[in-house]
């Protein structure tokens, strides 16, 4: 008898997502190395990857937990700054590769911690309070860091919200955060390949989590909180868990961000609510609860307006047509049905072909 390789439908779905990301990476790398890519497009690759990472994290919160967050740029901000400070302080003291891995831990840990703290007062409540609280959190964290001056010298850490002078630093001390001027000199540790590896890592964690007893518990709360309680699901703990992981994934994207930019500034352009909403748009248009959809939507919808710059007056027109098309593909029940049918047929074809 032939031995059957048993890959369940959910795990093959996961593999397709990884395969898609890796294929896209290979193609883009080929373009990069053959010089076929404009430098403009080249500069968009890393942001595309970190927005895809945040979108994956946000979908865990919005699609799987069923809670709206309007502050994921804030968690990205926490991850970016905490890891940048770590790298600044340890550059030259720890070998590069190890330092970046540790910076990653620092960024993820801090954003997870902040996510946990934001979650405590809100997630025990039943109702749509998370959206408003995360919105406020995102703006507050961005503005605080924007106003913060931070430095270290032999006497220790100096903090001020006024000016660089007010830090009263020794001349040989290091300025870490220079107010609105932000952080400079963070080692340029992240590139497109590293960003893609981290995207894959985020996908592994989030997709595996969804397909586990923890993931089912979280989705049961989303689908019917009262029923979830009735079967003994500890609702608040699972909500906290999912939200904390979601914030941590956004923080991971922040680490890529801060290690790929010359000057890290806490401005609205990077960490404002408009960014949170942009990522939410990726999640919604990619299909709420569809992790692969988030990656595709984030990549396409981030690149498109940038690539269409040359077309000037038609740019927004084409962009809106694409938005509508994406929405139809991911939301119209009839199209979804046809799409599933189509892919089922392909899958069956592959199976028959392999047998």
């Amino acid at each position, binding site marked *: 008898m032939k031995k059957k390789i048993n890959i369940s439908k959910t795990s093959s779905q996961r593999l397709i997502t990884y395969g898609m990301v890796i294929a896209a990476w290979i193609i883009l790398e080929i373009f990069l190395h053959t010089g076929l890519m404009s430098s403009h497009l080249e500069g968009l690759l890393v942001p595309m990857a970190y927005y895809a990472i945040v979108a994956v994290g946000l979908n865990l919160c919005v699609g799987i937990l069923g809670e709206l967050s309007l502050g994921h740029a804030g968690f990205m901000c926490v991850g970016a700054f905490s890891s940048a400070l770590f790298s600044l302080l340890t550059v030259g003291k720890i070998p590069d590769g190890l330092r970046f891995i540790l910076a990653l831990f620092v960024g993820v840990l801090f954003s997870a911690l902040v996510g946990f703290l934001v979650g405590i007062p809100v997630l025990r409540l039943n109702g749509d309070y998370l959206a408003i609280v995360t919105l406020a959190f995102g703006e507050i964290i961005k503005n605080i860091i924007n106003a913060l001056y931070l430095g270290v010298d032999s006497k220790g850490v100096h903090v001020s919200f006024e000016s660089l002078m007010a830090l009263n630093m020794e001349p040989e001390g290091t300025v870490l955060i220079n107010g609105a001027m932000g952080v400079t000199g963070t080692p340029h540790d992240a590139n497109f390949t590293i960003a893609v590896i981290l995207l894959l890592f985020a996908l*592994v*964690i989030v997709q*595996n*989590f969804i*397909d*586990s*007893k*923890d*993931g*089912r*518990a979280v*989705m*049961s709360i*989303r*689908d*019917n909180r*009262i*029923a*979830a*309680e*009735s*079967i*003994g*699901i*500890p*609702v608040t703990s699972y909500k906290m*868990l999912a939200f904390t*992981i979601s914030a941590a994934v956004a923080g991971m994207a922040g680490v890529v961000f801060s290690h790929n930019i010359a000057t890290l500034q806490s401005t609205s352009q990077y960490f404002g609510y408009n960014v949170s909403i942009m990522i939410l748009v990726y999640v919604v248009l990619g299909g709420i*609860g569809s992790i692969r959809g988030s990656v595709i939507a984030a990549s396409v919808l981030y690149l498109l307006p940038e690539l269409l710059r040359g077309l000037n007056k038609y740019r927004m027109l084409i962009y809106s047509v694409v938005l509508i098309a994406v929405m139809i593909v991911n939301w119209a029940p009839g199209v979804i049905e046809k799409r599933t049918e189509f892919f089922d047929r392909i899958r069956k074809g592959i199976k028959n072909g392999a047998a």
Partner: protein
Amino acid sequence: MALLDVKDLSITFGGLHAVEEFSLSIEKGQLYGLIGPNGAGKTTVFNLLTGVYKPTQGSIILDGRDITAHSTEEINKDGIARTFQNIRLFHKLSVIDNVKTALHREFEYSTFEAMFHCGRYASVEREMEKKAIEILKVFSLDTVSSILSSNLPYGQQRKLEIARAMATGPKILLLDEPAAGMNPNETAELMETISLIRDRFGITILLIEHDMKLVSGICEHLTVLNFGKILAEGDTKEVLSDPEVIRAYLGDDE
């Protein structure tokens, strides 16, 4: 000693005495009926027993332990599982995942193992799957295990809710109008399934039913509720021939 001992349970909603001094004693293995006209307070009794509402007075003793102050989540752990009059499935989860979700306490692996599908994940998930299929088989739902639960026909949705409650391994199962909205065939079949799970699993069942004829077939004991108060209780035959009970029903069920 009774498995479930309820004493003087009361609750008011803004002046309305929804349930007043409700007492109930159920022995292990009994199939007990709670009946009464619409709005009598039956569902409210279930909500009190499962910690959804906190009683203003009274006590709930399960297996010798006072669980009156426990949360819904704790009460399930204590050994009470329920279904809902208006079906509450996890509608975006498959049939089998609805049951697997309810097996969360029996099967254990860490969040780390969940995120990396390592360690105990594979073996525990396999066991969980086996157990879930076993439970689904009791309700003839194993053939539709991978369907989205919201796509099930109504009768099967009701059964799945019972299967999910059973999966938590309760000492006592509370069923809130399990046959509501079913046709006579489906109803007869469901009542058979309910008797069957009682006999097979030795589980104790408290069943709410609006329709008197239905319960008389399978319940040995009844409590009749009317306007939040107990109207009659005891042996099914005696209760159903009680003139007061007949009057309460005739007044409502015209």
